[in-house]
Each structure stands twice: as C-alpha cells, then as structure tokens.
C-alpha cells in the first residue's frame, strides 16, 4: 500500500480505510486508487514557494485575526524553537511574559502572547500534538477558539 513516514504506525487506518464496505459508506467511487497516508505523486512533484510565511502572518494579524502557533516540544521535524523564534521574529510587542500553562494541575507547557498571536508549547508531546497529548491539546484548542485563558 505504498510508503509511510517512519516512526508512525498507520497500518490500522490504512487497513480500515481500504475496506470495500468502508469506502462505500464514505461514498468513495470504486475507480479511485487505494487510500494511503501520504501520496508519493504529490510529495515528489510538490514545489514550495514560501521559504517563510512571515509576511502572510503579518498581513493576517493586521486584519485583526487571532493566531495560535503551538508545538509539541519533543518534535525535531518542526522543533519548537524554530516556531518560537518565528513568532518572536514577527517583531510584535509581547503582551504577556513567557509563562507556564496548566492542564489537570500539571504544567502542560509554556506560552507567550504578542497581541493577537500566541506561541504555546505542549510539554512532552511530539509532532502530532492531539495524538500524543490529547488532554492538553483539547484544553489548548478550547482556549483558542473561545479566546479564553490558557
């Protein structure tokens, strides 16, 4: 069923999603190829145009939108320092100090706000935060979409 990214076991999802009865339930035409976690065809022919999305962020924030940049802090594919430095490099005034946030009476990570954008770490989580820290991830998600406290 194709290549999968290392260190991720997606066998169960691939098996289930490629069952005939599941495809039928999800209204997937028989003519479509098997489902895979990642597409070689897309990955190999993809062209990156944005070495950085700094200007895009600045435009969005100037329109008054809210933004949350969060990182599981054990990930090395997109490590938290890179995104922390990215947010700091936007050059916006910090509106809170760098501080911890709690979930279930435990420090769940750290965060700092710069006006409408928040940078937040999720302690001990990897690249896929909702998978590896579901409780803190839900808490963070709820705080962000309700514009509440972390």
């Amino acid at each position, binding site marked *: 069923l194709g290549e*999968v990214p*290392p*260190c*991720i*076991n997606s066998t*169960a*999802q*691939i*098996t*289930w*999603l490629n*069952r005939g009865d*599941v495809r039928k339930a*999800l209204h*997937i035409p028989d003519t479509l190829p098997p*489902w*895979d976690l*990642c*597409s*070689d*065809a*897309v*990955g190999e*022919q*993809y*062209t*990156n*145009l*944005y070495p*950085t999305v*700094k200007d*895009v962020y600045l435009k*969005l924030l100037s*329109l008054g*939108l*809210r*933004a*949350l940049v969060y*990182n599981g802090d*054990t*990930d090395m*594919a*997109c490590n938290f320092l*890179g995104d922390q*430095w*990215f947010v700091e*490099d936007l050059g916006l005034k910090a509106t809170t100090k760098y501080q911890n946030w709690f979930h279930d009476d435990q420090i769940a990570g750290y965060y700092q706000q710069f006006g*409408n954008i928040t940078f937040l770490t999720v302690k001990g989580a*990897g*690249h*896929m*935060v909702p998978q*590896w820290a*579901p*409780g803190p*991830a839900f808490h963070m*998600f*709820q705080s*962000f*979409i309700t514009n509440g406290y972390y």
Partner: protein
Amino acid sequence: QYAPDEVTYLPGMKFKPNYRQWSGFLQAQPGKYLHYWFVTSQRDPVKDPLVLWLNGGPGCSSLDGFLSENGPFHVNDNGATLYENPFSWNKIANVLYLESPAGVGYSYSDDQKYATDDDQVADDNYKALQSFFAKFPNFTQNEFFIFGESYGGIYAPTLSLRVATGAAKINFKGFSVGNGLSSFALNDQTLVYFGYYHGLFGEDLWRDLNTNCCDKGNCNFYNSSSQTCKTLVNVAFGIVYNSGLNEYALYLDCEVGRRSHKGYERTMSHLFKNYKKQPHTHKVSGGVSSSIS
C-alpha cells in the same frame, strides 16, 4: 445539509454517535475534487465554531488527523473496529477534514496530474471551502477557524489570507498552526541548538560547529558558505534523523523500523532543504552505526 454525502453507518462502529457526519467531494479548480469528511459538534452544531483541519506533508492526508489525532473516533489496532476519542475536538466544534491537495488520500484529479505548489494548493483549498459552504450553507454564520499541522504551517496561513481577503462571506476568526513549518531557515537553524541542548551530540561537534559556523557569536547553521560548516551541520542533522531517533517525538521509540525508504527521504527533504545525506565524516559518540533500530 447535503444529504447524498451523509454517512449514517460505518463498518466497525459499535457505538451510536451523537453527531452527524458527511463524506464526499468538494470542487476545487475544474477537474480537481478534494475528499472531505465533516463531523458536527457533539454540543451545539448551530452555535459552535466550524474548524477546518489540514495535515501537511506536503502530500499527507488529513484523515490521519481524524483517525489518529483529534477526530471523534479512531481505528483499533485490528484495522477493523473503531473506538471513541474522549478528547475529540468535535466535542465543542464542527470539524471539517479536507484531504488536500488532489492526489492525497481519496482526493483526485480527472487528468491524474499531481504536480502542484503552495499557491495552487491555497487556491484549490479556498475553492473547496466555497464548495463546502454551498453544500452546507447554514454553517456560514458559525465562527470559522483554520488549523494546519506540519507543512500545514504553509497551508493554513496561505489559505487564511484568501479567506480573509476573498469575496466569500465567511465568519473567519483565526488560524492555528501545530508543529508547523513556518520558516525553513529558522527550522534548520534551531534544530542544531535543539540537538545540542537535548544532549544528542557532545562538545566536540558543538565546538566545531561554533568554530566553523559562527562569527563573533552570530551563527549560521542554515546556509553557511563554509563547506566545513555545511559538513558539520549535516553530521548534526544526520544524528537527528538518521541515527535511530524518532524525529517526530524524541522520547518515543520508532514504531515502524528503519527509515531508509523513499517516502521518508522525501518528507525530510521538504523540511531540511540543505541536508544532503552523506557518510558520517565526523566521529559521533563513539561511532553510532546506522544499524541501530
């Protein structure tokens, strides 16, 4: 709602969901169809926000997000039955999972041509979003958020810009990026510090990196003109993603064995543009052999 896409039964689901779900295709540019899977909020679909979730890659499916991360149910290891996720984000929001771009997952293009780029993806995602609201018109009033993960660090803000400045009337409130690729330069630059300060390599390499990549305290681990520096940075990167560590989670084991297959190289080549996999020229912690699994 768009009745033909409603999912009223799923093989392997032993529980009765208290939300509704739809799975079908949204129109992107002509000839391109993006598969979507939409679940309503378990709380108040009318008042709760609408959230779009995008996994990255580029080229990886957002159904991984649904079935392994924040979706209402996940697949048991037997690949046949489902179990409920108590931390599902659709506890408080209507969540739309979009497989993007065409070619990813069940998303497809009539001409089966899948070369694309950041702007084309953002344009297609925006068209698909408008197609979604055409199918589900009564969600245009809900507050709307876009979430992207990994290479979604490019997808989310570029799509957000189109939503925020486009003609479609969407009650857009904000966007979020999880473990995202926001800047190639900073992602590379910081990984060296991350590696050293997490003890992945020792003083020798760190001293050599500082000697060859830094000048008066300013270090450039991203695109130094020094070949020696580049070689040393490659050694550091090699330790991070070619010595046996789980790059996605430092303290977790690597579940699927070794990383020499093509898909892996491709994903990392997108994230670390300057890394050229070379034989270790720098003795590292007593000669880490690539046979560590």
